[in-house]
């Protein structure tokens, strides 16, 4: 589907002055030698499976890579857990806490690794916040500002699956949906499954709005796993100069 010429990134002779670009300004992908690939999509769209398979492919090939997951910073973990358990979170604080989590991973992992010429794979990225928090009612302009410090991905895969397909995948596989996961805080329904469906519908709508504005590469989440993975690998190989991330041993030869 994507038959463009591979985008060759010129290796820069002199590295940018500071490791961390000024927070609060977007970081274009030209500002560092590494590359950033992210996957987005609603729960049950198949994105995590696909990113895992992409990661395995690259790992087996020996490429320099780092994998990072949404909402996984150890520094912010206890706060998030407490907030969720005691249901202290409002749309605003839910959003801010996730932004703090992202900022921590961004400043301590993602940016340094991109500067250090790594391939960074992210399972969910700022678009998750844009979709989910907007579905909770946060002002989009405020959200865009909140994540302005984030590096712009080289590729953003958007795994799109019809609402029913995605929702049924989750509902059939999980015994109980968590309170915030099901969007119970929005008070749309007393039934968790129904609340989840309504919440996911809103999120899907928000994702769809970003396809053009944020240059998502849309993939069909209902395709067979291996075929979808082939598409994904082809696109990665065509858009990113993977040789740059090949094992260092070969370089030093």
């Amino acid at each position, binding site marked *: 589907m994507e038959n463009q010429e591979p985008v060759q990134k010129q290796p820069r002779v002199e590295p940018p002055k500071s490791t961390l670009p000024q927070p609060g300004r977007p970081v274009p992908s030209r500002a560092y030698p590494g590359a950033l690939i992210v996957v987005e999509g609603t729960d049950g769209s198949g994105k995590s499976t696909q990113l895992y398979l992409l990661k395995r492919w690259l790992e087996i090939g020996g490429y320099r890579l780092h994998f990072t997951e949404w909402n996984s910073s150890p520094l*912010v973990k206890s706060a998030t857990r407490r907030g969720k358990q005691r249901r202290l979170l409002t749309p605003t604080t839910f959003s801010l806490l996730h*932004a703090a989590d992202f900022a921590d991973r961004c400043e301590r992992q993602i940016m340094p690794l991109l500067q250090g010429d790594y391939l960074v794979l992210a399972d969910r990225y700022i678009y998750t916040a844009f979709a989910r928090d907007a579905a909770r009612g946060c002002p989009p302009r405020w959200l865009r500002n909140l994540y302005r410090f984030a590096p712009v991905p080289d590729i953003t895969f958007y795994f799109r699956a019809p609402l029913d397909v995605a929702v049924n995948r989750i509902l059939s596989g999980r015994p109980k949906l968590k309170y915030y996961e099901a969007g119970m805080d929005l008070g749309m329904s007393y039934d968790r499954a129904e609340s989840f469906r309504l919440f996911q519908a809103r999120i899907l709508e928000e994702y769809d709005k970003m396809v053009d504005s944020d240059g998502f590469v849309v993939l069909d989440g209902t395709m067979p796993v291996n075929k979808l993975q082939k598409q994904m690998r082809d696109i990665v190989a065509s858009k990113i100069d993977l040789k740059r991330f090949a094992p260092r041993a070969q370089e030093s030869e």
Partner: protein
Amino acid sequence: MPDQEKDKTAPPAPVPDGQPAPPKALAAPVAEEASSQYFFGEPLVGFDPSEITGSLIVIEGMDGSGRSTQIALLQEWLESEGFAVQTSGLRRSNLVGRDIDELLAKNAVTRLTLALMYATDFFDQIEHRILPALRSGTVVLADRFIFTLIARGVVRGINRDYMSGLYAMALRPHLTFWLNVRPETAFGREFKKAQAISYWEAGRDMSLSHDLYWSFVRYQTMIKREFEVMAKRHNFIELDGEASVSAVNKQLRQRIAEQLGIRATKYTPSTALAHLWR
């Protein structure tokens, strides 16, 4: 100072009958929505500002400017005048207050993460402490507000627009006092308190100087400059924080009395607080 009275930013607080009219609220320059009189930019999700019947009074100023002393005294005065008082301050949220303490102690946190944790702490208090109080007609005395948080971010190189955008959904205070002191004076006062100067008070993370005194003075001077920028834009009522506790308190009481429609501003602290009066 009293000329700055016509506080452009104050929302029209509902005032009990027969009391002086509240300051008029002017729309902010970029105001497309009525909510801008209540918020700095964007409206807070799920909240109706017309429910506010209390007053939000902010005391800003650097470490050692006498904020907490003044707040303790103001609380007693207001309670003796029959007003319900709620206080707020940095790192006091149930959500992340303690987490920030831990982050600060470990010193493993980067500036942006810290700024966002403080923002979480701030909005948790807005939503769970300040707004409920304001809805029930309480006077909220805030020991610091977004201005300190913005200044701390900006002096650490975080984009100024980013920081103010972060706090776009913060409530506009009815009154914002700035207790202005020289960093040199503040240093002495802070040192006296704990017989030491903390890592963060001295801005040690910024590598300004290995000398603690100079690090403190340089850091607080940078913060002060940011305050000077914000003072005009946000109509701070600047008070000389180096004046005596009773003199500063008198000025505070006068302005707050006007705001709340209190006639008498006479006050002598109880024996419990007499030690603060000096």
